[in-house]
C-alpha cells in the first residue's frame, strides 16, 4: 500500500480505515456461484432505511391520540404538509414490501439450506428479526386509527385472551382498557417508534456479524473455506456491490411504481374510515403478509384450540429448522437434495394458497381448502426429519450425493 496523505491518511492512522475497508469490503470474498437472491439481504436493509427516514417525517406531524390520530394522518399529513403524502405512501408501501423482501430472503435461505450448520445463529437472529418486524408492522398499523387499524388490533389482542388462566387479564393489561382505546394507541406508538426499531438495529448488527463470521452460503451449498473463496470467489467491493447496485435500482423502480401508482394494496380503503368502536366493517382481514398464519388460525374451523395452537406453531416452527433438518449431505443446498426440493416447492405453493385463502370468506369450499392447506403447511416441518433419515441411510450405504 502506498503511503497516503491528506484526510484519508490522517484517519487511517487513527481508525485504521484502510484495514477496515479491506476486511469489510475489498478483501471480503463471496462465492461466485450465488445469484441475485443473495442481494435480498441488502435489500431488506435498504427498505429498513427507507422506513426509518419516511417514518421520521410522518412522525413530525402524527398525533398519537385517539381523537386526533385519524385526522393528523389523513388531513394534515396527506393533504396539508407539502409532500407529506409522499412520505406516508413510502412508509405504508415500504412496510408492505419489507415483508415481500423478507419472505424471498427467507425462502432463499431455506431452499439453499442456509439455515444449516454452520449458519444456525444467522438463521435464529434472522428469525428474531422477522418477529420484531412483524411486531413493528402490527403496532404501526394501529396508528392511523382507521376501521381496519382498529379491528385488526381488537381481534389480534383478543387472541391473547385464549391463553389459559392468565388470558383474560392479560388482554386488558395489553390494551390498558377493556377495549382497544387511547391507552393502547399510545403504547403501540411508543413501541413502534422507539423500542422495536432499536431492537431491529441491534439484531441486524448481530445477524450481519454472524454472516461475516461464517461466510455466505452458495447455490450448490458447497462448504468453502476462506482461502477457497479468495481463490475462486469475488470480492465484496467492487464486484459484488456493482451487481448489488443494479439489483437495488431495479428494485427501487418497482418500489416507486407501487408508491405512486399502485398503493392500494398497502393502504386499505376501509382504513380511510375512522375507527368506530361500535361497528365492525363487513370484511376485516390482516395485512397480506399475515394472511397465511391467519388462515392457519381459521383453518381448523372445527376447533378453536387447534386453530390457536396451529397459529402459534406456524409462526414459530421455522425457528427450529436447523434442528429439524439433520441431513448429513455435505452439499446443503436443496438443489442437490431431490426430496427436499419437492417438499420446498409444495411448501411455497401451500404458503401462497394459505395467503390467498386468508383473505377469502372462510365458508364452504374455502373452509375445507383452508384445513387442507393448513395441514400441508405442517407437512414440510414433519417431512424434514424423515428426509434427513432417508438421506442418512443413503450416506451410510455409500450413496447420496
Amino acid at each position, binding site marked *: 500500500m502506498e503511503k497516503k496523505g491528506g484526510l484519508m491518511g490522517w484517519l487511517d492512522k487513527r481508525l485504521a480505515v484502510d484495514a477496515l475497508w479491506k476486511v469489510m469490503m475489498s478483501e471480503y470474498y463471496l462465492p461466485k456461484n450465488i445469484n441475485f437472491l443473495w442481494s435480498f439481504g441488502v435489500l431488506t436493509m435498504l427498505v429498513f432505511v427507507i422506513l426509518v427516514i419516511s417514518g421520521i417525517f410522518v412522525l413530525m406531524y402524527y398525533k398519537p391520540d385517539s381523537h386526533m390520530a385519524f385526522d393528523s394522518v*389523513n388531513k394534515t399529513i396527506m393533504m396539508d404538509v407539502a409532500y407529506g403524502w409522499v412520505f406516508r405512501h413510502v412508509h405504508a408501501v415500504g412496510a408492505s414490501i419489507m415483508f415481500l423482501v423478507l419472505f*424471498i430472503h427467507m425462502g432463499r435461505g431455506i431452499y439453499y439450506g442456509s439455515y444449516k450448520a454452520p449458519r444456525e445463529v444467522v438463521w435464529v437472529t434472522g428469525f428474531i428479526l422477522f418477529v420484531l418486524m412483524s411486531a413493528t408492522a402490527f403496532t404501526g398499523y394501529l396508528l392511523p386509527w382507521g376501521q381496519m387499524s382498529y379491528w385488526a388490533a381488537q381481534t389480534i389482542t383478543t387472541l391473547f385472551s385464549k391463553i389459559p388462566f392468565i388470558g383474560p387479564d392479560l388482554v386488558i393489561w395489553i390494551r390498558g382498557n377493556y377495549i382497544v382505546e387511547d391507552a393502547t394507541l399510545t403504547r403501540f406508538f411508543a413501541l413502534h417508534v422507539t423500542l422495536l426499531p432499536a431492537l431491529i438495529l441491534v439484531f441486524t448488527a448481530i445477524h450481519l456479524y454472524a454472516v461475516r463470521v461464517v461466510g455466505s452460503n452458495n447455490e450448490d451449498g458447497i462448504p468453502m473455506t476462506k482461502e477457497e473463496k479468495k481463490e475462486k470467489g469475488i470480492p465484496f467491493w*467492487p464486484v459484488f456491490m456493482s451487481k448489488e447496485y443494479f439489483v437495488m435500482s431495479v428494485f427501487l423502480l418497482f418500489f416507486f411504481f407501487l408508491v405512486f401508482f399502485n398503493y392500494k394494496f398497502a393502504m386499505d380503503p376501509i382504513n380511510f374510515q375512522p375507527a368506530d368502536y361500535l361497528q365492525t366493517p363487513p370484511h376485516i382481514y390482516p395485512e397480506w403478509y399475515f394472511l397465511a398464519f391467519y388462515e392457519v388460525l381459521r383453518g381448523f374451523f372445527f376447533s378453536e384450540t387447534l386453530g390457536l395452537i396451529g397459529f402459534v406453531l406456524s409462526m414459530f416452527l421455522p425457528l427450529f429448522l436447523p434442528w429439524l433438518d439433520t441431513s448429513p449431505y455435505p452439499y446443503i443446498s436443496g438443489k442437490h437434495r431431490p426430496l427436499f426440493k419437492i417438499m420446498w416447492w409444495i411448501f411455497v405453493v401451500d404458503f401462497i394458497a394459505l395467503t390467498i385463502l386468508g383473505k377469502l370468506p372462510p365458508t364452504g369450499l374455502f373452509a375445507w381448502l383452508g384445513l387442507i392447506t393448513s395441514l400441508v403447511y405442517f407437512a414440510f416441518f414433519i417431512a424434514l426429519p424423515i428426509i434427513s433419515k432417508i438421506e442418512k441411510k443413503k450416506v451410510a450405504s455409500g450413496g447420496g450425493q
Partner: protein
Amino acid sequence: MKELKILAVLIVIVGVTYWGIEPLAHSIMHKHIEEAIHKYHLPDYEFSDLGSTPPLDGDPAKGKEAFQMFCASCHGLKADGIPAPMDPKTAAMSFGVVPPDLSNITSYTDKKFLFHFIKDPAKASEFKKIAMPAMGLQDEQIADIIAYLDSKAKKVHGEELFKEACGRCHGAKYQKIYAETPPDALKKYLGKVPPDLSIIMKAKGEHYLVAFINKPQALLPGTSMPRVGLNKEATEDLMKYLDEISDPHKEQRQKVGIIVLAYMLVMIGLTYAWKKKIWKNIH
C-alpha cells in the same frame, strides 16, 4: 440466463399472490354488491321501480299557489323570496332533520323521482322513517309544483351542490363543511350520525358510491340513508367534487411519479453499465 429464470419464477409467484389477494379476493368479497348493481341495473336514473309518471307539464303560477299552501310551512324557497319558516335548529328539533330549501331542487333531482317522492316520500326514498309525510296531492298539483320549482332552479356545482344535496345530514370537515342538522338530532332521527364525507371517495370508490347514492337499500339493506334521486348530471358533478377533495394531490402525485420512475430508469442504465464493466472478465 439462469438468473432470468429465477426472476421469472419470482414474478410468477408474486403475480399469482397479488392476483389472489387483490382482484380475486375483492371480487369474491364484493360479490353481493356486484349482484345488486346487476340486478337493479344501477345506477338507474329512470328510477324505473317507481312506475310510470304522468306528463310533467304543469303551470308554474298554479304551482306557486300550491307550494305556498302545502310546502311553505316546512320549506323555504329563497330563489323566490320565500324564507325558511324556522331556523335550522328549531326545524331539526321538530322534524329530526332540517327540511331543504327547494330553490334549486329540480336542477339536481330527477323530476320523475321528485314527482313520486312528493306523492309518497317514504316509498320513493325507501326510508320508512322519512320526516316528510305524504300530502295526498293530486297528480296535476304535483306537476304544477314541479313546474314552479323548475322555473326558479339554477344549476349548482361542486361544493354548493354538495351542501345542497348532501349537506343537511353529511359534513366534509376537511373542507370546513359541517352538516346543517346538529349531530344529536341526526342521531335521534337516523339511529346514527351519518359519516363525514371528506375522504369517502378513498374509502368507497366511485363505482360503489354512484350505485349506493342511486339506490342505498340495494347495496346496504336497512341503511338509514334515504334515496334522494340525484339525476345523472348531478351525480357525476358530485363524484368529481368528492374525488377532488379526497385526493387533492392526484395531479402532483402523477407528475412526481413519472419523474421518479424516469430517474430510476436512468439509474438502472448506469448501474447496469458499471456492473457490465466490472464483471467483464469474470466468468
